[in-house]
């Protein structure tokens, strides 16, 4: 590390000078800039789209590999990049470009923290109906990882709310797709492709979202199911009713205890109350209705930096998945029971006989047998290279072809996404 810091050679100085020339703040990287343990050489902080494009062009001209970075809350997700020379930090790109309140549309730069955006929208009686179970992240980072939380049941995920995007391609080309009207089918919808692309197809520079009015009232209905089967039955009953829940979540600690189920209903004050009552009746005698969320709501389980799994399965397989996770000694399971998208964490610590790869494969096989998929979102430091984070990926050949078109030199977060298969 020390070597790196002192070895700012002539080549590095030339790159820094070129980065400086873009108008972006540029500097040699420090120890705090490592991306999943991989130390970059430079950091550039563009303040706007033009600077971001100029920085990406410099990276192209000098053949630098690039890691886009927001506030770094999910920088340890995916594989460590195989190369990482330039960090492009988006935090200075944090403007609200346009909030067309009457049109329920907002356009923001990628470096804006999502929490700040929600505060701003809240003041106008609106919201982006996207929950993020890991606070502090930027709009760009949330999109790049396609992270979503409880309200996805009613509103879908980030890709369903994104209506326009501006990206900077690997060679510095600025490209836009979509627009600022909700209804629009002109051209390919590249926003969908960029959502969940982990910075491998380009730098997300700004994003336009459709917004929703903030509902007048919200009620949480809480109950504890003694078995996974009961939890699944409740969820099915709520889904089969006409109460239109905004979210149906579950939370289960390791060790085979009860499963907490929480249902959120939102709407007009006159409606939310009675609907919460209907839900409570479906969840049995122990159900209670509150105005506040339970403490675990919209929070990733586990500790920062620990192994985090995301499981998707049919809703009818949730009880089976919970049982499989019990057998595997999972320390926590939490997430959207209504859409059957769950976060899970391994035993802490793992039994000495088991390694993370073995644990992941065991769970993945059980989940696959139930018709689901398991993806490791975050591996503990140093462990990712020994894990198959994504598991089988249908359409992988097409994805690789897409990557090669958008980033022919494989300079954008190389190996970060899908491609690093331990043999």
């Amino acid at each position, binding site marked *: 590390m020390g070597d790196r810091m002192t070895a700012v050679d002539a080549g590095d100085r030339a790159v820094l000078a070129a980065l400086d020339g873009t108008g972006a703040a540029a500097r040699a990287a420090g120890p705090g800039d490592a991306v999943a343990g991989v130390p970059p050489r430079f950091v550039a902080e563009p303040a706007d789209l033009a600077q971001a494009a100029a920085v990406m062009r410099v990276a192209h001209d000098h*053949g630098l590999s690039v890691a886009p970075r927001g506030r770094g809350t999910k920088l340890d997700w995916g594989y460590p990049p195989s*190369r990482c020379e330039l960090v492009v930090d988006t935090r200075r790109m944090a403007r609200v470009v346009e909030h067309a309140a*009457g*049109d329920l549309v907002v356009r923001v730069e990628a470096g804006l923290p999502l929490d700040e955006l929600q505060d701003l929208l809240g003041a106008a009686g609106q919201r982006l109906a996207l929950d993020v179970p890991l606070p502090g992240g930027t709009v760009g980072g949330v999109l790049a990882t*396609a992270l979503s939380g409880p309200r996805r049941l009613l509103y*879908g995920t980030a*890709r369903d709310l994104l209506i326009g995007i501006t*990206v900077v391609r690997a060679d510095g*080309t600025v*490209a*836009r797709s979509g627009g600022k*009207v909700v*209804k*629009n*089918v*002109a*051209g*390919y*919808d*590249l926003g*969908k*492709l960029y959502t969940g692309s982990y910075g*491998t*197809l380009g730098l997300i520079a700004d994003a336009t979202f459709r917004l929703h*009015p903030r509902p*007048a009232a919200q009620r949480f209905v809480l109950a504890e199911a003694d078995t996974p089967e009961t939890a699944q039955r409740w969820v099915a009953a709520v*889904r*089969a009713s006409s109460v*239109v829940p905004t979210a149906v979540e579950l939370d289960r600690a390791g060790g085979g205890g009860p499963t907490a189920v929480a249902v959120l209903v939102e709407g007009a004050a*006159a*409606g939310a109350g009675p609907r919460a009552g209907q839900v409570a009746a479906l969840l049995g005698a122990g159900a209670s209705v509150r105005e506040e969320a339970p403490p675990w709501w919209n929070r990733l389980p586990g500790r920062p930096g620990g192994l985090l799994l*995301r499981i*998707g399965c049919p*809703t009818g397989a949730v009880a089976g998945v919970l049982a499989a996770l019990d057998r595997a000694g999972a320390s926590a399971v939490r997430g*959207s029971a209504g859409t*059957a998208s769950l976060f899970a964490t391994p035993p802490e610590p793992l039994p000495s006989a088991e390694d993370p790869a073995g644990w992941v494969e065991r769970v993945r096989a059980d989940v696959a047998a139930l*018709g*689901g*998929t398991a*993806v490791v979102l975050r591996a503990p430091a140093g462990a990712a290279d020994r894990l198959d984070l*994504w598991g089988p*990926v*249908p*359409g992988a050949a*097409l994805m*690789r*072809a*897409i*990557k090669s*078109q*958008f980033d*022919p*030199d*494989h300079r954008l977060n*190389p*190996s970060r996404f*899908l*491609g*690093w298969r*331990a043999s």
Partner: protein
Amino acid sequence: MTDLAPLVPRLRAICGDDGVVTDETRRRTYESDGLTYHAAVPGLVVLPTTTEQVAAVVRLCGEHGVPFVARGSGTGLSAGALPLPEGVLIVTSRMRRVLRVDPVEQLAVVEPGVFNLAVTTAAAPYGLYYAPDPSSQQVCSVGGNVAENSGGAHCLKYGFTVNHILGLEVVTPDGEIVQLGGGPDAPGYDLVGAFVGSEGTLGIATKITVRLLRTPETVRTLLAAFRSTDEGGVAVSSVIGAGVLPAAIEMMDALAIEAAEAAVACGYPEGAGAVLIIELDGPAADVEHEFAEVERLCREAGAFEVRIAADAEERARIWKGRKSAFAAVGRISPAYIVQDGVVPRTALPEVLRRIAELSARSGIRVANVFHAGDGNLHPLVLFDDAEPGAGERAAEVSGAILDLCIEHGGSITGEHGVGADKAKHMPAMFSADDLDTMQLLRCAIDPRSLSNPGKVFPTPRLCGEVPGVRRGVHPLVASGQAEQF
């Protein structure tokens, strides 16, 4: 046709004798979609019944470098399914099975030729329905809906086709059968999202898994009559501003009302310069509360009459005029162009005034029927095709309306797609770099541009190797332990 002759026996071997159409008269029946002024007789037509047949046909086309075009029901309004005389038209009309309805998972799996409404019909016994509801839903295919990312009157609240597709089986342009999506958070890039709305240019959908929604507990519909579209526009803005999200808000102007009256005698209030149809659905208590609010806001905005549907029959009567509007203008004009542009909702009054000015200046009448809630205009540009030059003038007005949409930050198409018809307008909305970037996706999946060429993009991109320094192959890649990504 001559070039394609060698394909015929092999296509017959794949699709059966009756699955290949060579007869000129029969081929001619496929010469256009709903936009009849674009027409071309397809070189050959095939009617496959299985995914494997589609894949084999596509592979055969690939072998011979012959382009192909998918066609569902041919109701498209952008010449998306416009055939190629030198190509093969692959029609999905024999792939019409609803394969599965799963009431617990609330999904259905269908073949691409299944009619949109047939999905809801199959789901209805379970209290479920398929939300995207284009006005053509009785005959348009789900495959066509996927290709166009079709909308409908109720997409204001429920979103478009793309928000309701869980998974796809696709035959890629090189004849591979791939599964895309399928469950929540399917790993990898969102290829379902990329495919939906790609207008047949990225391959052919052969199986479609759609999300079903629970039939709402209550539906309430009103018809509000205003003196002018301006007043109607105010009502729309105040409803949305009040935090109400109706299932649908539709507007018709005086000329559209006149046409609908002539065609179906819908009996809308006399003297209306505009009518709004507003529908709310959902849980009863919420809907009742918001419905009262909507009625009040309409009156405040100047509605001189508000009719509230008391039952399903009255609701159908209110919708009748709106649903017949496209066809109805045939009663007041020998020919017309249906336009499909979008503006931000708040720009509606201004844009409608400008359209009226355009109309006055050119002497071309324009009837407006539109999805007001999401600013999706469907101006019907009326002309007499017997009058020399009228068609050209109408096309000019129609194009000028698109310019207005773009000028106000909108889109050249909200739901009908770009197809062959609007490809030339794409550069007005997108830069050369934007279009080039979109076509990177095309190059990745269909580098030879065999799947529906000539649609969406005004100029095809050459998909050759992109020049660039390739450096530093990672050692793990070199040693075969990892794939470069």
